[in-house]
């Protein structure tokens, strides 16, 4: 008998968006069940309903063979369902430990038994973050880990994970994989959402693919090939991203960074030529974001020279943007978009230097960008908060796809983006580069870096330690170079 069964689950948002159009899903106990789908397919909506954070418009939830309807998030927790949300809701002013214990009842904050248990979980996972640090002082990847630890420490029968690995890299992902296996071995059930098909293949026993609010594929993983899943997600066949071996001629040096240093960044020199994509590989916290912010001038403690076409760029973001630098930051909600402005306004934010707004032109541009990046949205007047995670990311990218941009820097641009759109975005980057735009690309998907970069810089501990040629390096070698261990990795993926 399935532990969880959904029948005809439907969700219509107040603004009229139909996110789920009658989804059936059944999860067997003791299995890892994968849930996939393009951005905006309704995955997060589905799990929010399961977690009691949203109310379904229609449909039936059966938990342990019993029909249930939750009123609020407390009920499913009590019933044994723990949830890791995609946009991890944490309390920034409390420590990581306090956040993990947030849903506990009882009397005392310093409940020794509960703390000991969390510490045990932390030890199991290799102390992924300092438990007593305030969450507001932790980077986004660590925050993701807090949510994972919290869900595991809650001792639930079903653990729902909404893209837990989207902001993680290397060994931390492996940690999560190992944890999921352990949970499965303990007889628990996991509902696992991811855009990484390799993860899904390696980890899950069964998969369900959602498209436009409907389940379009429901099968045992063993019976499927990667391409089947990818095609089901995109609703079309997705060609795998492969390096094209064409030789390129690069133009002149566009970006020239000399002796750039910041508190978490050793003095760095680098150059990027016109038409070149330079990848930056590294582990979590290796200083990749730090480097981009230092170049962009958004880190005011950064010192050193940044030249664009031989012109020195002052160390301020407004000057940098005027000069033609563009940065797509990694935390889209906090750094990427303005939630109360429409998509058109958000996209226009990057380029307006004129005095008057030009609603007609801006709307046309926004609509074109929505088309080009296949952003799933009603129209350009929608607010970013109405979008699914991946689509919001595309809006942030769209902000910089302007003629004025002379140097594009992308920080984890594909985090949380579905396979179809990911290929589209990477192709787009490649096309932009081929048209002469230099690109700096930070990604934790080394496969992506190898596929589209012309050069890859490897960072470790705030230092560029080596430069590798993507044409000759394998993914595992790149991981080794970045400081991760090959053994762990291959175990993580295949064991």
């Amino acid at each position, binding site marked *: 008998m399935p532990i969880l069964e959904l029948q005809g689950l439907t969700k219509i948002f107040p603004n009229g968006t139909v996110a789920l159009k009658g989804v059936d899903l059944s999860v067997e106990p003791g299995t890892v069940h994968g849930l996939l789908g393009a951005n905006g397919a309704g995955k997060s909506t589905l799990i929010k309903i399961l977690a009691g954070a949203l109310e379904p418009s229609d449909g039936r939830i059966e938990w342990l063979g019993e029909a249930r309807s939750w009123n609020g998030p407390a009920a499913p927790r009590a019933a044994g369902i723990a949830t890791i949300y995609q946009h991890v809701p944490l309390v920034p002013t409390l420590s990581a430990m306090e956040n993990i214990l947030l849903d506990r009842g009882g009397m005392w904050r310093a409940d020794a038994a509960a703390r000991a248990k969390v510490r045990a979980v932390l030890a199991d996972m290799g102390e992924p973050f300092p438990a007593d640090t305030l969450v507001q002082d932790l980077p986004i990847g660590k925050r993701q880990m807090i949510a994972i630890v919290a869900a595991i420490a809650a001792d639930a029968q079903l653990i729902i994970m909404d893209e837990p690995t989207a902001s993680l890299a290397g060994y931390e992902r492996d940690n999560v994989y190992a944890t999921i296996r352990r949970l499965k071995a303990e007889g628990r059930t996991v509902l696992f959402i991811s855009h990484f098909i390799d993860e899904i293949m390696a980890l899950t026993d069964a998969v369900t693919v959602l498209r436009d609010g409907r389940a379009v594929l429901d099968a045992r993983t063993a019976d499927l090939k990667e391409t089947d899943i990818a095609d089901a997600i995109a609703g079309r066949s997705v060609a795998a991203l492969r390096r094209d071996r064409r030789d390129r001629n690069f133009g002149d040096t566009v970006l020239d960074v000399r002796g750039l240093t910041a508190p978490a960044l050793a003095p760095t020199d680098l150059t990027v030529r016109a038409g070149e994509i330079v990848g930056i590989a590294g582990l979590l916290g290796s200083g990749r974001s730090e480097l981009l912010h230092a170049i962009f001038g958004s880190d005011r403690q950064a010192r050193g020279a940044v030249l664009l076409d031989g012109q020195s760029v002052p160390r301020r973001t407004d000057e940098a*943007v005027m000069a033609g630098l563009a*940065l797509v930051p990694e935390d889209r909600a906090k750094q990427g978009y*303005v939630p*109360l*402005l429409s998509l058109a306004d958000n996209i226009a934010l990057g380029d307006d230097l004129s005095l008057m707004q030009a609603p007609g032109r801006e709307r046309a541009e926004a609509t074109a960008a929505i088309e080009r990046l296949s952003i799933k949205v009603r129209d350009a007047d929608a607010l970013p908060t109405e979008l699914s995670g991946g689509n919001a990311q595309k809006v942030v990218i769209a902000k910089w796809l302007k003629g004025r941009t002379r140097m594009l820097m992308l920080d984890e641009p594909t985090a949380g983006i579905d396979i179809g759109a990911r290929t589209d975005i990477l192709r787009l980057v490649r096309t932009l580069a081929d048209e002469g735009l230099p690109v700096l690309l930070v990604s934790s998907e080394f496969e992506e870096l190898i596929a589209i970069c012309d050069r890859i810089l490897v960072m470790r501990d705030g230092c560029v330690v080596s430069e590798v040629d993507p044409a000759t390096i394998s993914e595992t070698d790149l991981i080794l170079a970045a400081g991760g261990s090959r053994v762990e990795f291959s175990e993580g993926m295949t064991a």
Partner: protein
Amino acid sequence: MSGQDWRRIFGLREAGVYYALALLIAVLAGIAANRGLPAYISGQNLGNIAYQASLVGIMGVAMTVMLITGAFDLSVASVAALAAAVLIALAGQVGFPAAAVAALCTAGAIGLLNGAIVQFVGINAFIVTLGTLTAVRGLVLILTDGRSLMVERPEVLAQMLAFESGRVSAFWVLLVIGAAVLGYALARRRRVPAGIGGVLLVASAAFAGQDFTLAAPVLYLALFTALVGFVLRFTVVGRRVYAVGGNAEAARLSGINVNAYRIGAFALSSVAAGFAGILFACRLGAINPTALQGAELTVIAAAILGGTSLFGGAGSVVKTVVGALLLFTLTNGFNILNLGANYQGLIEGVVVVAAAAIYTVGAGRARLLKGAAA
């Protein structure tokens, strides 16, 4: 234009404060008629309300910009008093125009100081402007030596009175603004609210006729509101103001100089307060050291009644002015109906909450939940 758009534009959430004002005026007019008092809705009386609301309105418009950028200014009333004191103290020696410039510069300097402390030292705007509220009031006391000051030279006094108490024919003002708004509405289809506003303005011009005049401060308020509203709505600067308040970090990474915008908002707020102070001083030809004490809460209340968010990123200057009109209509109503003073406080408080409720409830449960999260 779809039915949904219509519902949105005329829904309580968008238009709530207009409905609240209309309702209040209707109730007061009804009671006045019932008691046999002179007609409540007369050009004279409505003109009075607008005149009485003008200073708070001017400060409220700037405060709205402030709130949109996500900051806060408690010092406006003190700054207005200081500007008034500077004007009165200097006008005798250097004449009205020079003294007014000095007053505006003083006010602007305090705004820059406020903004610089908030942005560069990083202290919370509430505590900084609470500090300057006290300190600037202290400056007023020092400047006036705790006494009222007045302008002694009659010709300067006459200039000042003329600046404040000149009257303009409302007919032309309403007609010009109405026509401009209508023109805009026609130039771009789909701008129904602007169209309706324009028609209403032109109609009231016709209704008021050419005899009906407006006090100068009302005209200044109208011009200032129109200017700031225009900048916010149609210029890139306006969009950036909203962006700075909506997500400062995203704005910064989009190449917006967040510090400049925030400090600019402080300066605007103080300069507007300084201008209000000048009007105040011109109205009375004198300044008492406790002038305008406590007005800051009224100013903020007007902005928030107009639907401006305390958390930044949203707000409309026209609605702030309507919020100010609402507050002053209420006291005007008390005076007209000769309501016992003991009951005024209770009624005023209840009406303020009820007015805010009108559009909050209209926004429905969805927003409620989000609001609770914010």
